[in-house]
């Protein structure tokens, strides 16, 4: 049986997959060595019942970052962050848009994703190879409330 984190990871992967600028390059926790930037990495920051600081509730904090490099690194990273926000922000099942429609990231048969709240912005750069060629990381932290379906 799937746990809440597994359901959440699957839902985020499905929601973000096949979008510009990252295409299918969406990875949970870490990207494989053959992955091509720009790509998206999302990871659990806190919440759920894993690791030392655990919670009984199905509330998660997740970082979702677009990582890009090269000539258009900055542009791709920032555009990716905007797209991530567009796809996830206030898009849980109980989030209602201006027309009264429910969000589309609803979870699976076991867990319902109730709300997705955008938190702080992440924007960093790193010179991984130490040769003045920067890798840009841009995205947001999201707080996600889930609930086991009855």
């Amino acid at each position, binding site marked *: 049986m799937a746990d809440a984190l597994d359901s959440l990871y699957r839902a985020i992967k499905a929601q973000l997959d096949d979008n510009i600028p990252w295409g299918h390059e969406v990875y949970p926790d870490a990207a494989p060595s053959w992955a091509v930037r720009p790509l998206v*990495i999302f990871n659990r*920051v806190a919440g759920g019942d894993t*690791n*030392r600081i655990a919670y009984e509730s199905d509330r998660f904090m997740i970082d979702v970052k677009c990582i890009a490099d090269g000539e258009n690194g900055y542009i791709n990273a920032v555009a990716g962050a905007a797209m991530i926000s567009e796809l996830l922000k206030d898009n849980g099942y109980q989030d209602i848009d201006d027309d009264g429609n429910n969000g589309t990231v609803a979870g699976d048969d076991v867990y319902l994703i109730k709300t997705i709240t955008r938190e702080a912005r992440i924007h960093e750069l790193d010179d991984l190879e130490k040769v003045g060629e920067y890798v840009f990381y841009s995205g947001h932290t999201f707080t996600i409330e889930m609930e086991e379906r009855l």
Partner: protein
Amino acid sequence: MGARVTVDFSGADRIITQTAKRDQFVRMMAQMVKAESVLSMQRSPATGNVNPVTGHVASSPGNPPRIEHGTLVNSIDTRKVSDMAHEVGTPVLHGRKTEFGIGILPRPWLRPAMLLMQSKVKDEAQRFFDSGIVF
């Protein structure tokens, strides 16, 4: 550039009128975040790479960074930014890199502590004020 979070109780001043005690409570909550951050590093499982020279075992991704030299853990501070808000964080660069996973796989240590404090704040406030505040 390090990593910082703000423990912000703006708005609570409308329901808690005891100014001195209120300040004390906000400060205490910030200290709780700091203490939990430190504790999480001290108790982070030794499941990462082993330094062949020193024998130090690093943390694995997803867990708070394990203490080696103590630079990060000793740099965590709190500071008052307004009557109802205190910041907790570090000026140390690798504190930010581990928190957000910049150049390495993420090992968050600050925001998990913040989230834990959020889950405890109602109980702590009721115990601290002991004045029948209903949240």
